[in-house]
């Protein structure tokens, strides 16, 4: 305590604000433009040169005098009036453009986005900042590097700004309050020590994370990492990881703010890529406009989430500069508006033009109230007046019952669909990760079709005891439709893959050239009202036979359109009614062949994201397991090269967990549904889950590794003991047959299945309680079956379906 006091006495009188700013390391610019902490400026100030904050503190504050409103006012200052730069200013600086230049009217010398980008790059080169060592690069690589540099720098700068402001808003407030507490109770030295330790710990963790991030950035800047897609993917994956962290931040916001951001992001995700980027760019540029609503931290956090996701989605193939430029234009357009109008516009753009849900519902219910008065009046006129109140009560009771029942039905269906969607999604991800081949895709389609065929008759056979349950039938039918849709989607995925395998770029380009030669007019299009060159190209390409444009990944489509438009030689300003001729580009065999080949590389690049995701997971796991150890370049390389299996395990576990969670959610939703409906829904759910490729992966793992064959006859106690230690040995397969003598360690996939089985047994144990404990020597299979016998069904909340299907031979798998 004394030490701290002395420290304070050695410095000029400081306000709580200054103390906290010093502690948080918040920096501001002094007049020389040098970044300094407030304390540094205060210690070295000359009259008239210090900033607003120090002066304000000297004039007004002592720690205990400030009332709440004054304190609030001071806390806002660093965000709104300080020399701290706004996100807009940061971005402007990074683009190398002055505010004045950006704000020139359309009649003035407004430069193109590519000019802006080039200037920025030139500026960096002149200063020698962040310039990679000279490496012989192709023009294409250089161009891509520019895009990457620009996109990443924008995001990182904006994030830095976010962090600064977050500090000045949150930690600042927290520390002031803590210091106040300590000052008031200065005898509680221990408590202060504890607070300081906690703060230092958090700060150290943040510093470590930032250092790891900066190390990677420096590597990139120095060119240590080989130029190309890998390093790009690394960077983007890294940003994605930050994206996740921002999500964590959003979760810490108060409920209304969370809802606002969530709603905004949901809407945002539904927008087209161009619109997404425009909004994101606008948010980055117009950060200051967003302070006024939702809370700065939350909004910028939301912006960052949106921004990074977008950059990741589009950066591989399209001109990021151009897209971000759309956002800049959007912001420029609104620059002259009042702050309130600007804010409202930004909010609408993010959340959508629709009326706020809350307000909309409130208005609807108000209108209902008025309508109700009218109806009640009429009821009194049409029916006996003395009956009117009874009629009203009757309608209220019936409607309330309908609401409960209806919601139960609609939510069960929604959850069922969600489960199926997740299953398909996880299967698709798994397919990507495992480089699914043609045969595999065909197998998925075949299996899906088979399950759909089985589903119909199964539902028809379900006895429905009363006409009152007929609503359940429609639910079942809806489930069948969903299943069919899923099967259809699976087929589409499979066909896309098969098509990609079957067709070479040369063949496609040759076929296109032939088509163009036969009928060039087919490849010309007129720009319709409200359309654009991009949309026109998109529409036309979607109709070109044999190109497979519609089944391309989004990144591939964007690249394709960009390249075609560039080849056609038009700028983006086309007029309604203008005729666009794509025949020369599409008929140019060598150009198209090159374009198609490049598009294949983009698809591979997308897969690299997934691989990088695995690496990140491995790094994250390592960091958790090794607190305090430096995460430097060498460490990262070591983790990535030596932990591929670990990373894969983590990713796969996530996929399976997602599917399993969906299944569990559905199982929960079944509670409270009439028993007769449960039987029907159970059948449907089984089929849907089976169709979900994620679930299908489970038996596949078991089939390939023989996990179930190895463990089903083990005693529960031995299984639990060995699995906890990861010590289950697997029989080596010789000529496809398990050899009990030859043993080997578990593979990553096998370990995953063992873990799921273990979790499942624990769940059964939890439900069964003391009486449900496994008997001595009772095998895993016997234990699971005993639960099924006792409860009339297996436990669906986990692995029950998988186990029963494997054992009954119901699944077409190899055990």
């Amino acid at each position: 305590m004394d030490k701290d006091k002395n420290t304070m006495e050695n410095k000029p009188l400081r306000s709580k604000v200054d103390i906290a700013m010093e502690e948080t390391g918040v920096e501001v610019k002094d007049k020389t433009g040098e970044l300094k902490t407030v304390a540094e400026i205060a210690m070295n100030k000359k009259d008239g040169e210090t900033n607003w904050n120090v002066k304000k503190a000297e004039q007004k504050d002592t720690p205990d005098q400030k009332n709440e409103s004054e304190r609030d006012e001071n806390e806002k200052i660093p965000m709104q009036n300080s020399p701290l730069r706004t996100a807009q200013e940061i971005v402007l600086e990074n683009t190398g453009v002055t505010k004045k230049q950006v704000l020139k009217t359309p009649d003035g010398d407004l430069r193109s986005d590519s000019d802006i980008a080039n200037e920025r790059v030139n500026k960096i080169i002149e200063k020698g900042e962040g310039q990679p060592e000279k490496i012989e690069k192709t023009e294409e690589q250089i161009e891509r590097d520019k895009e990457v540099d620009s996109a990443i720098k924008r995001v990182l700068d904006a994030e830095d700004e976010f962090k600064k402001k977050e500090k000045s808003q949150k930690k600042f407030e927290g520390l002031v309050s803590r210091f106040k507490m300590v000052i008031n109770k200065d005898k509680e030295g221990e408590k202060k020590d504890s607070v300081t330790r906690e703060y230092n710990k958090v700060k150290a963790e943040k510093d470590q994370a930032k250092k790891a991030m900066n190390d990677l950035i420096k590597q990139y800047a120095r060119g240590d990492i080989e130029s190309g897609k890998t390093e790009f993917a690394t960077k983007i994956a890294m940003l994605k990881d930050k994206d996740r962290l921002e999500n964590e931040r959003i979760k810490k916001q108060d409920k209304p703010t969370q809802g606002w951001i969530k709603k905004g992001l949901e809407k945002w995700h539904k927008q087209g890529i161009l619109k997404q980027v425009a909004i994101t760019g606008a948010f980055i540029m117009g950060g200051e406009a967003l302070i006024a609503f939702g809370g700065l931290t939350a909004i910028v956090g939301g912006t960052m989430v949106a921004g990074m996701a977008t950059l990741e989605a589009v950066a591989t193939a399209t001109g990021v500069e151009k897209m971000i430029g759309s956002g800049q234009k959007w912001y420029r357009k609104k620059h002259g508006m009042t702050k309130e109008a600007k804010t409202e516009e930004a909010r609408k753009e993010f959340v959508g033009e629709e009326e706020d849900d809350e307000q909309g519902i409130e208005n609807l219910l108000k209108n209902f109230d008025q309508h109700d008065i009218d109806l009640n009046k009429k009821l009194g006129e049409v029916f006996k007046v003395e009956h009117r109140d009874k009629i009203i009560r009757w309608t209220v009771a019936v409607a309330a019952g309908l609401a409960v029942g209806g919601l139960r039905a609609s939510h069960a269906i929604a959850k069922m669909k969600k489960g199926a969607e997740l299953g398909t999604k996880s299967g698709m991800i798994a397919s990507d990760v495992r480089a699914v081949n043609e045969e595999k895709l065909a197998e998925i389609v075949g299996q899906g079709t088979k399950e759909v065929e089985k589903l119909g008759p199964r539902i028809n056979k379900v006895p429905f005891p009363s006409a009152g349950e007929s609503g359940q039938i429609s639910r079942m039918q809806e489930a069948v439709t969903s299943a069919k849709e899923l099967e259809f989607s699976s087929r589409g995925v499979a066909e896309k893959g098969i098509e990609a395998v079957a067709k070479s770029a040369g063949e496609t380009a040759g076929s296109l050239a032939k088509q163009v030669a036969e009928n060039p007019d087919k490849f010309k299009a007129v720009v319709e009202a409200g359309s654009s060159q991009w949309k026109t190209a998109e529409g036309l390409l979607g109709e070109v036979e044999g190109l497979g444009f519609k089944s391309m990944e989004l990144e591939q489509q964007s690249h394709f359109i960009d390249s075609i438009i560039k080849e056609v030689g038009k700028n983006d300003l086309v007029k309604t009614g203008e005729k666009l001729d794509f025949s020369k580009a599409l008929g140019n065999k060598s150009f198209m062949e090159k374009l198609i080949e490049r598009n294949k590389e983009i698809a591979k690049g997308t897969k690299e994201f997934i691989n990088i995701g695995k690496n990140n997971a491995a790094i994250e796991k390592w960091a958790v397991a090794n607190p305090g150890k430096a995460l430097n370049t060498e460490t990262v390389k070591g983790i990535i090269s030596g932990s591929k299996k670990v990373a894969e395990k983590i990713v796969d576990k996530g996929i399976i967990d997602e599917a399993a969670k969906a299944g569990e959610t559905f199982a929960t939703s079944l509670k409270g549904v009439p028993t007769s409906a449960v039987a029907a829904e159970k059948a449907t759910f089984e089929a849907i889950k089976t169709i979900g490729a994620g679930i299908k992966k489970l038996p596949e793992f078991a089939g390939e590794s023989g996990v179930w064959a190895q463990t089903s006859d083990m005693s529960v106690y031995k299984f639990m003991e060995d699995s906890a230690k990861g010590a289950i040995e697997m029989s080596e397969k010789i000529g496809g047959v398990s050899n009990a003598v030859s043993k080997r360690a578990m593979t990553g996939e096998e370990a995953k299945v063992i873990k799921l089985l273990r979790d499942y047994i624990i769940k059964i144990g939890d439900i069964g309680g003391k009486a449900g404990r496994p008997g001595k020597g009772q095998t895993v299979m016997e234990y699971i079956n005993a639960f099924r016998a006792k409860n009339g069904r297996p436990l669906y909340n986990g692995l029950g379906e998988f186990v029963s299907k494997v054992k009954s031979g119901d699944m077409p798998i190899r055990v």
Partner: protein
Amino acid sequence: MSLFKDANIQVKIVEAFGIGDLPEDKQAQVLARAGELLIKRLFLKVADILSPDDRNNFDQMLGQEPPVSEDQVSSFLTEKVPNIESLLQEEISSFAGEFRV
């Protein structure tokens, strides 16, 4: 039998009013209120169609103490108004058309 449950009017109200994306509690709020008004609208419409005797019987039925069951009202309406289900569907559409969010 229940005219209202069998016709799945809950789901139809949700669809007609476009409230499927709302949180569960909000949906329930709108559903309960809309269901109430919808039934009142239907009763008023039916009252116009029924013969004077049937209308009187319907009035008596609704005024009973304790209240009649939902099934009894459903049976009466199904018997006396053969196209009651399509009438109900029309009413949902017209109601939602007037008040859609």
